[in-house]
C-alpha cells in the first residue's frame, strides 16, 4: 500500500470536494456489486476518489437507471470498518499476517483435514459473483462436491417448480405484456430495475398490473389493483384460477393441444378447486378470482403471471414447490410460454471453456452430503446450489470440517443463528473472504480481505440476459486502498497453495479471453465499453423444451415416479397462526429498496435513509394492533420458540391481519460493523432450521411469532 493511495482514500469529503471542483473526471465502465443484479455502471473518479455512478443505458438489467444501493454502496470503499490486511485469529483475537503466511498455514491445515477426512469434508459457499465458476473449479480441483450458493434460503423452490414444468427458469417479457399479475414478488422493493422499467413501459401502453401480496408492497403502488392474499395460501388462488380457466375454457386450446402433456389429468383433478373453495382458504372473494382469471385470459398470450423470485414461493412455504408448478401451468394455459408479452426464455451468454488450453479438474466422486438430487432425501433440490443452510448441521455431525465463505454471511442470513454459529464454530478450519468483519468473518480462523468491487478487475459476467445476451465486466476504477486482493486472485492463489495450481495456470486476461471466444468478442473492446451484445436475438416460440417430453409438463411423470403428485395439489402451510390468540401472527419479511441482505446496513448513506424515514419497524395491521393496544411507534416484544427481540411498530391498513412484516437487512450483531450494529431485528432470529421435505429449502415464512406490547 502506498502512502498516496492511503491518503486519497482517507482524506475527508469536505476537503476533497473543495479541491476537486474543477478536477478532471475519468469515467470507467464496470458493474455494481450492491446486490446480485450486477447492473452496468459508469463510475466517475475525481482526484483519485470515487465521485458518482451513472447507469449504462444499453444494459438489459438496468437500462440506464441506478437504485439507491448503487449510489450508496460505493461509499463503502472508504468505510473505516474495512479490513486492511489478512487476519489470523490467535487466542480469540485477530492479528494481521502476510498473505504468504495466511496461505501457507491454510494449506497446511487443509492438507491435514484432507488426509483424515477426504475431499468431501471441504466446502465453499458464496453469494454468486462473476468468478463463481472459478470457485466451483477450485472445489472440483480438490475433488470436493461441496460448492454451495445461498439458493436454499432464496429461490430453489421456484426454480424447481419451473424446471419440472418447462425445463428451466424463464424470464418475464413485462414491457410487452397487456396484463401482468405478480404473486409475492416485489421488484420495486427487492429492486430489479429492468423489471420495473418493463412494468412502467407496459402500463404506459395500457397494460393492467395486479399485485397479489399480503402487504401493500412498493410494486403495489404502481398496480391497478392490490389483492391482499392470506400468506401461505397463494397456491389456493392459483389452483382456483386454473379451475376457472379449465371450466370456462379460457385456455389457449392450440397451445395446450400441441405443446403440453397431461391436460386431461389436470381437467380431472382441478374440479376439486373451485373459486368458492379457494375463497375460504386464501381470503380472496370467489368473484374476484373469477374476474381476474377472465381478465388475464382475455389478453392471452400477451398476459403473464410473474415467474417469481424469493417472495411468496422462492423458499417460503411447505407448498412453495407446488405454487411454482401451479404458476408455470397457469402461464402455459395462457399459451404464453416463450411468447412476446408472456413468459420467455431470455438469451444468456454461454461462456467458452478453459479447456483444452487448461486441464479439466477431476471433479467429485461422491454426491453432496446435503442430499440434493438424491431420491429419498431431497430429490427436487438443486445440486448446483446445494442446501447451504444445511452446512451448520453437517458441520455439527462432523461431515464438513473445513469451509471457505466468500461474499456471504451465513451467520446473519441463515435461519436460526444460534445453531448456525454452533455449526460454523465446530469447523476445524473456517476461512472468510470478506472486505469487513461480518458476523461470519468474526468467528473465522483466517480472514482474507477481498478488494472492494471498485478496486479490482474480475471475471467476465453474463448476468445481463434478455432479448439479446450481453456480457459485462467488473473493472478496477481506483487502486486498492489496502493490502487486499480480488476474489479471482484469491481463488487462484488458494489453488496454487493447495497443490492444484495446474488447473489455474492462467492469468485473468487469458481466462477472460477464453470465456469470450465463442462470441468472437474482443476483451479490449469489452473493457472499453463495459458491455457487449453477443449471440443471436431472441425469437418467439419453441420446438422442444428441456423437459423429458419436450413439452410443457402439466402432468409430470418424473414427479409421479419420485412419489410426488403429477399435478399440483393443495397443500396447507406447515404452520399457521392461532386464530384464537390475539398475539399470534405469521412472521413475513421482505426487502426495502435501500438494503441488500446483511451487507448494506453498515453503509451510512443507506442506513441514514432507514433512520430518517423510520423504516426499521415491524408492520402490523391496524385492527390487530388496536386489539393489542399497540399504537404507531410503540415498542413490542416478538417471540418464537427459538428467539425473541424488541422492535417498534408501524401500524398500517396495508397488511393482511394474519401476519406481521419485518424488513430484512437489519439486526446486525457484529460489533465491527459500527454503523449497522444493533439496529432492528432479522427474521432469521425467529426462524427455526427447516428443510422442505422435497426441495430442502428454508421455508422462511413458516414461522409463527407472539407479539406483545412492552
Amino acid at each position, binding site marked *: 500500500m502506498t502512502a498516496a493511495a492511503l491518503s486519497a482514500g482517507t482524506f475527508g469529503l469536505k476537503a476533497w470536494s473543495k479541491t476537486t471542483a474543477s478536477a478532471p473526471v475519468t469515467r470507467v465502465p464496470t458493474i455494481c456489486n450492491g446486490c446480485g443484479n450486477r447492473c452496468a455502471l459508469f463510475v466517475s473518479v475525481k482526484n483519485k476518489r470515487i465521485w458518482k455512478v451513472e447507469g449504462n443505458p444499453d444494459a438489459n438489467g438496468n437500462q440506464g437507471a441506478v*437504485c*439507491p444501493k448503487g449510489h450508496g454502496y460505493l461509499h463503502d470503499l472508504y468505510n473505516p470498518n474495512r479490513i486492511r490486511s489478512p487476519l489470523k485469529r490467535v487466542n480469540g483475537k485477530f492479528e494481521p499476517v502476510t498473505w504468504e503466511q495466511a496461505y501457507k498455514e491454510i494449506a497446511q491445515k487443509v492438507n491435514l483435514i484432507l488426509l483424515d477426512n477426504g475431499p468431501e469434508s471441504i466446502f465453499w459457499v458464496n453469494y454468486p459473483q462473476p468468478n463463481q465458476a472459478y470457485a466451483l473449479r477450485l472445489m472440483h480441483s480438490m475433488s470436493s462436491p461441496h460448492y454451495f450458493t445461498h439458493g436454499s434460503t432464496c429461490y430453489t423452490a421456484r426454480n424447481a417448480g419451473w424446471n419440472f414444468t418447462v425445463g428451466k427458469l424463464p424470464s418475464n417479457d413485462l414491457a410487452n405484456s397487456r396484463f401482468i399479475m405478480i404473486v409475492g414478488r416485489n421488484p420495486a422493493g427487492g*429492486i430489479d430495475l429492468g423489471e420495473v*422499467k418493463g412494468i*412502467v413501459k407496459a402500463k404506459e401502453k395500457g397494460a393492467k398490473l395486479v399485485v397479489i401480496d399480503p402487504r401493500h408492497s*412498493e410494486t403495489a*403502488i404502481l398496480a391497478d389493483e392490490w389483492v391482499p392474499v392470506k400468506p401461505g395460501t397463494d397456491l389456493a388462488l392459483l389452483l382456483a384460477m386454473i379451475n376457472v380457466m379449465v371450466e370456462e375454457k379460457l385456455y389457449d386450446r392450440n397451445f395446450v393441444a400441441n405443446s403440453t402433456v397431461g391436460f386431461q389429468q389436470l381437467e380431472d383433478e382441478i374440479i376439486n378447486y373451485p373459486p368458492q373453495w379457494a375463497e375460504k382458504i386464501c381470503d380472496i372473494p370467489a368473484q374476484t378470482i373469477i374476474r381476474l382469471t377472465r381478465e388475464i385470459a382475455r389478453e392471452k398470450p400477451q398476459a403473464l403471471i410473474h415467474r417469481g423470485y424469493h417472495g411468496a414461493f422462492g423458499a417460503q412455504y411447505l407448498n412453495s414447490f407446488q405454487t411454482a408448478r401451479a404458476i408455470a401451468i397457469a402461464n402455459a394455459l395462457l399459451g404464453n410460454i416463450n411468447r412476446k408479452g408472456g413468459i420467455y426464455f431470455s438469451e444468456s451468454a454461454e461462456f467458452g471453456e478453459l479447456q483444452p488450453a487448461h486441464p479439466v479438474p477431476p471433479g467429485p466422486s461422491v454426491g453432496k452430503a446435503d442430499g440434493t438430487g438424491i431420491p429419498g432425501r431431497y430429490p427436487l433440490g438443486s445440486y448446483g446450489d446445494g442446501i447451504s443452510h444445511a452446512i451448520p448441521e453437517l458441520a455439527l455431525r462432523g461431515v464438513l470440517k473445513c469451509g471457505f465463505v466468500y461474499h456471504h454471511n451465513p451467520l446473519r442470513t441463515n435461519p436460526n443463528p444460534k445453531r448456525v454459529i454452533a455449526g460454523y464454530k465446530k469447523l476445524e478450519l473456517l476461512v472468510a473472504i470478506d472486505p469487513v468483519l461480518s458476523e461470519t468473518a468474526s468467528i473465522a480462523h483466517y480472514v482474507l480481505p477481498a478488494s472492494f468491487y471498485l478496486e479490482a478487475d474480475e471475471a467476465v459476467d453474463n448476468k445481463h440476459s434478455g432479448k439479446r445476451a450481453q456480457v459485462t465486466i467488473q473493472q478496477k476504477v481506483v487502486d486498492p486502498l489496502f493490502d487486499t486482493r480480488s476474489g479471482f486472485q484469491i481463488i487462484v492463489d488458494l489453488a496454487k497453495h493447495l497443490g492444484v495450481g495446474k488447473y489455474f495456470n492462467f492469468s485473468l486476461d487469458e481466462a477472460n479471453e477464453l470465456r469470450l471466444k465463442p462470441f468472437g468478442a474482443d476483451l479490449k473492446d469489452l473493457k472499453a465499453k463495459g458491455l457487449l451484445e453477443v449471440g443471436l436475438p431472441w425469437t418467439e416460440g419453441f420446438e422442444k423444451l428441456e423437459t423429458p417430453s419436450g413439452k410443457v409438463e402439466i402432468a409430470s411423470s418424473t414427479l409421479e415416479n419420485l412419489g410426488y403428485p403429477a399435478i399440483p395439489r393443495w397443500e396447507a402451510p406447515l404452520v399457521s397462526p392461532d386464530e384464537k390468540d390475539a398475539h399470534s401472527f405469521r412472521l413475513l419479511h421482505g426487502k426495502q429498496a*435501500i438494503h441488500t441482505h446483511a451487507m448494506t446496513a453498515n453503509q451510512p448513506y443507506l442506513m441514514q435513509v432507514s433512520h430518517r424515514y423510520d423504516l426499521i419497524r415491524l408492520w402490523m395491521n*391496524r385492527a390487530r394492533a388496536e386489539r393489542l393496544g399497540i399504537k404507531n411507534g410503540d415498542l413490542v416484544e416478538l417471540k418464537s420458540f427459538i428467539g425473541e427481540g424488541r422492535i417498534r411498530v408501524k401500524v398500517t391498513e396495508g397488511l393482511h391481519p394474519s401476519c406481521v412484516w419485518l424488513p430484512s437487512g437489519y439486526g446486525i450483531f457484529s460489533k465491527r460493523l459500527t454503523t449497522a450494529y444493533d439496529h432492528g431485528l432479522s427474521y432469521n432470529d425467529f426462524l427455526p432450521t427447516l428443510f422442505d421435505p422435497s426441495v430442502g429449502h428454508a421455508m422462511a415464512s413458516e414461522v409463527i411469532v407472539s407479539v406483545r406490547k412492552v
Partner: protein
Amino acid sequence: MARYGMVIDETKCVGCHACRVACQNQNNLHENDAFNFLVEKESGTFPNFSRGFLPAQCQHCDKPPCVSVCPTGASRKRSDGVVIVKEKDCIGCKYCIAACPYNARIITKNGSVDKCRFCIELVESGGTPACVTTCMTGVRIFGDLDDPASDIAQFIAKNRRNLRVLKGELRTGPAVFYRKA
C-alpha cells in the same frame, strides 16, 4: 435563455430514495444532508387501501420567498429560473430557511445553507439532473419550459388538467409541477 422546470409524476414514485442518494453523490453531500425528500401518504382501510410517495425539493419559485428575505443577496434567482445560494455571500442568518414554504433548504454538515439547484453545473455541460436519470419509474421530467419541443413542455401541454403546484395559494409560482395521483 432557457427557463428550467420539472414535472414530478406523483403516481410513479415507489419511495426507493435513489434520487436522494444520486443527488448526494452528484453534489458531494454528507449522508445526513439531502436536497430531496419523500412524504409517504396512506389512505383507505384494509383491504381497500392505497399508498404513495410525494417527492419534494426546491420548487425554484418564480417569486421565491427565500430570495426576498435574504439580507445579503446570497440567495438569488438566475435568469434561467434556477434559485441558487452563493456560499461566500451567505452569513448563515437562516431567514431563507424560515421563509421557504416547502422546507426545501437545509444547513449542511459544512454549516452552509444549501438546496437543490437542478444540478445546474451538470445541465450546463449537457447533462440531466441526477435525480431524473437515476429513477427506475421515470418520476421526473426536466427541461426548458419555454422550448415547445422539449419533453417537459410537451408533457405539460398534454397533461395540463392533471397538473398542480404545491401550495398554489401562496402564489410563489413554482417551476416544479406535479402530476396528480
